[in-house]
């Protein structure tokens, strides 16, 4: 139990310790916030993490290189493909494996679709946090389910695909499925996006609640290592898909969405625009999908040469880095993840004080927290 001193913020009376979480409707997993409150105003905020720690990085050391992929799905269960992709790229670079063109394109397609589903979960969460009864939530869920149907048809699983392999991907995508997806993305998805925008950034109450709330400048973001939409909403156009292209990104035409304001509303606008950008990229990927093999032959007992490497990818939440070290055996010597939103969460103790309890949830929900990724 923490005893707070009498605070000047309350005019000399005692502040209130409010434990938000780990069991609370809007903690996006199992996050625990220790808030020191003066009435409804946050005086200090301390996030307590670790409730979802599964020891994935340590578990990986006892598995073969290929067996780790199944763990990466569970690392961030909202952005499964991005995590698989980051790990596979790291191992491939370590082992010096070159991928066929089609495998890269397939991976990029799934990665972008995954960005859409991840942003839809963010949308569902943030609209719940701001106090709707779940109508926008269900709308987002419906679209996400449509894309999950596609995932299921391709990989056999909705959420835990275990689809990427070191040296390629596990299954090819049927052209009919691709055509179906293209129709959906071109015809229905923009309409859905209009609805999302109308219900979030087009709503007077939301704008009044989010405008000027939780402002974080680009400089502060850089100091803390914050990346992704959080950083782009503060006006800095940094996106690894453009700055250090991998997969098929170099051949795609897309815009890096930024917003100069840096408040909660700007973060919403950036993510909503990214939804449309990702759909546009997916259509280009479907149209330009090259023919060829989906994987190269890689030995079952893969033994990358001793050494280590660090690979960066742009996950839906920001810069997802994977460090792998090999001692020349069939198992990783070390597997380490730089999870982007951990750095976003570490901004909370500086961002939240001075805001109301209601704002606190909007700010923290608005940065797209995923505890699976933070705790691993």
């Amino acid at each position, binding site marked *: 139990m923490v005893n707070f001193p009498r605070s000047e913020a309350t005019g000399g009376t005692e502040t*209130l310790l*409010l*434990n938000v979480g780990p069991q*609370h*409707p*809007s903690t996006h997993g199992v996050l625990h916030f220790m808030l020191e409150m003066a009435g*409804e105003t946050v005086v200090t905020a301390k996030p307590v993490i670790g409730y979802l720690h599964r020891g994935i990085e340590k578990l990986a050391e006892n598995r073969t290189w290929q067996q780790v992929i199944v763990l990466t799905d569970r690392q961030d269960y909202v952005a499964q493909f991005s995590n698989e992709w980051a790990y596979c790229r790291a191992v491939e670079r370590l082992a010096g494996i070159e991928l066929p063109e089609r495998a890269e394109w397939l991976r990029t397609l799934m990665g972008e679709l995954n960005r859409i589903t991840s942003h839809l979960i963010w949308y569902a969460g943030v*609209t*719940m*946090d*701001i*106090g*709707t*009864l*779940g*109508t926008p939530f*269900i*709308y987002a869920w*419906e679209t996400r389910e449509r894309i999950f149907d596609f995932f299921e048809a391709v990989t056999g699983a909705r959420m835990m695909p275990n689809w990427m392999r070191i040296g390629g991907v596990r299954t090819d995508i049927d052209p009919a499925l691709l055509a179906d997806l293209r129709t959906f993305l071109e015809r229905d998805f923009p309409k859905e996006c209009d609805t999302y925008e109308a*219900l979030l950034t087009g*709503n007077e*109450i*939301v704008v*009044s*609640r989010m405008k000027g709330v939780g402002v974080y400048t680009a400089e502060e973001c850089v100091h803390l290592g914050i990346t992704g939409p959080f950083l782009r909403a503060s006006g800095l156009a940094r996106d690894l898909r453009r700055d250090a292209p991998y997969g098929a990104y170099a051949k795609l035409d897309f815009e890096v969405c930024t917003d100069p304001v840096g408040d909660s509303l700007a973060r919403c606008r950036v993510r909503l625009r990214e939804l449309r950008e990702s759909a546009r990229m997916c259509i280009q990927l479907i149209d330009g999908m090259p023919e060829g093999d989906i994987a190269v032959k890689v030995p079952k007992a893969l033994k990358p040469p001793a050494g280590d490497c660090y690979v960066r990818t742009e996950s839906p939440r920001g810069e997802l880095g994977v460090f792998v070290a090999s001692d020349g055996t069939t198992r990783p010597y070390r597997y380490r993840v730089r999870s982007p939103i951990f750095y976003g969460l570490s901004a909370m103790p500086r961002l939240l004080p001075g805001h*109301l*309890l*209601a*704002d606190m*949830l909007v700010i923290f929900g608005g940065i797209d927290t995923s505890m699976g990724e933070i705790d691993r």
Partner: protein
Amino acid sequence: MSAALWLRTIVGLVALLALLAGVTLFGVWWERKFIGHLQRRRGPLHHGWHGLLQLPADMIKMIAKEDTVPTAADSLLFQFGPVAAIVPAYAALAALTFAPGIALIDMQHGLLYVFAWETMLPLAFALIGWSCANKFTLIGGLRAAAQLISYEIPMLLAALGVVLTAQSMNLTTIINAQTGWWYVFKQPLGFVIFSVAMLAEMNRSPFDLPEAESELVAGYMTEYSGMKFGFVQLAEYSVLLVGSYLIAALFLGGWNMPFLPASWLWLALKIVLLMTSTMWFRGTFPRLRVDTLTQMSWKWLLPAALVNIMLVAALALWLGPKVY
């Protein structure tokens, strides 16, 4: 009191209780169905015709649930809380006239009586919030007190405009005064203020701050389970019923309908439509923030209500009671 009066009172009280329970049950079902369809799903379907038996099932569940009292709670106040909520909510129903001559008591100052009981509710909510020894209920209870008190004033002032024009606080007289033009056409500003303030009184979205699920878990009623929760819920639905009734009676002509004979059916229809529209708001709007909420009341609704009263009084003086 004569035996006939006793009988009439008891029958009336039971009928009101049945009405309240019926409205709550129907309200819960209708809310789930209506919001379900707003969300492109179908709501309860499995028990009975379109899920109608869901309600008895929920009721049995609620009654059968273990009645827990938090260790740190003030036991006496904790037990008393639901009573403090249900009594005013139930008592307020006594003065409502549902059709010409159909009321438990057709009071001379019925409107005042209803408002007086409704004013007791924030007290009950604050009491509940305090007694649970839980920080979320405490914040919820204090929010309820702050919100209900700040919205009561513009609401009463808006209702005063109607009282001025109808020259009565008797609900039958007020409704009968609207056989021609309804007050919503004569006092549109008053109608808007009254409806918005009433929505806040009902704790309904976008003014559902005292419950604020995403922030306060379930607000002041977080610690209640079983029938205690049921009673609080009953009180909430009673406010919803009384609020919709008052909007219908004061501004929408009560049982009057243009070109058609007056009937209690019109009143019921208006109440159902008003309740449905609160559910519509609930399904669509996010929640206001606590500071914008109070600002809206004190800075906008209250001055507007004062302007409305002066406007109504001036028009009533100028045009005379026959016309306005």
